[in-house]
């Protein structure tokens, strides 16, 4: 598993796609893109379309799966040589947390961790993209605080179990954990 994070427009998605492509050539597996964004409005629609266009224009074939929640359900679709790119964890958490009748508690964290585990077991490499949002003043809003705390716990878990972790700054990936070949 590879974890990639960075600020907004830091180039983290591009870097993730590059890594995924390299891995798929090495594993001779298919490239799968797990999109967590909901097509909720025109702006999201355009963003998704831009990402799709970018992937189409690469020389590789990407299969896109739109899965805003319960990512583990996708696991059965993949095989041991497949490369999975999940973009991104913050949107997934957003969708999970704001789903009607969801209570932010340990079970929510466990179910997301389980989903990650199921995907990880059914592929060659799982690449998770997320955002750096924990370095700003904490607002007093309870829900925002819960969101940040949950994301922090998930990031710590993912980094601790990942083979590699990268922080992307202005398009430059910084290896925070693991080794480069």
């Amino acid at each position, binding site marked *: 598993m590879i974890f990639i994070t960075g*600020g907004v427009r830091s180039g983290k998605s591009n870097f993730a796609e590059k890594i995924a492509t390299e891995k798929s050539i090495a594993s001779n597996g298919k490239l799968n893109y797990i999109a967590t964004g909901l097509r909720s409005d025109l702006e999201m629609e355009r963003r998704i379309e831009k990402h799709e266009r970018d992937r189409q224009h690469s020389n590789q074939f990407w299969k896109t799966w739109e899965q805003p929640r319960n990512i583990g359900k996708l696991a059965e679709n993949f095989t041991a040589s497949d490369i999975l790119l999940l973009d991104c964890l913050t949107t997934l958490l957003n969708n999970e947390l704001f789903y009607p009748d969801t209570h932010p508690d340990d079970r929510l964290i466990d179910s997301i961790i389980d989903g990650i585990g199921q995907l990880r077991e059914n592929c060659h490499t799982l690449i998770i993209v997320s955002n*750096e*949002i*924990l*370095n*700003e*003043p*904490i607002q007093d809003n309870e829900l925002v605080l819960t969101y*940040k*705390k949950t*994301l*922090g*716990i998930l*990031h*710590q878990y*993912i*980094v*601790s179990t990942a083979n590699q*972790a990268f*922080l992307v700054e202005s398009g430059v990936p910084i290896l*925070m*954990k693991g080794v480069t070949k």
Partner: protein
Amino acid sequence: MHFITGGAFNGKKSWVKKHYQIEGHSHYQWVSAYQQDPLPFDLSTFGKQLLFLEGIEQWIKGLLLEMDMDESRRSWHERLVKWQRWEDKNRLNRIILIGTDISKGIVPLEKTERTWRDVTGWCYQDSAEKAERVDLVWYGINQRIK
């Protein structure tokens, strides 16, 4: 003096506890702004040689309720000087400062929030300057930057 910073919920406390191997021991004092502990001045009153001061950004917020920006920074700096003297008195005396990085979001709309962010940044610079070691904790991984 050892200064540890990093984003919120990044595992700073866990890293510090592991690094100093304090779990199961009682030779230290953990002073936390998050537990509403007041900002200390005289450290000799704790009667311990290993002191952890956690949540310094919250204490700085408290200083700003009583004084202006410059006075708050000066007040923090006075403490750093005093604490360093306390450390120098005995080679086993050690103080560990832990502060959440709040410097990287968009400029806050509220003036008090902007002021808090600015003063916290200055106080962190002063703390890092006084410290002989500084670590940045990123999701449980430390990067020694001084």
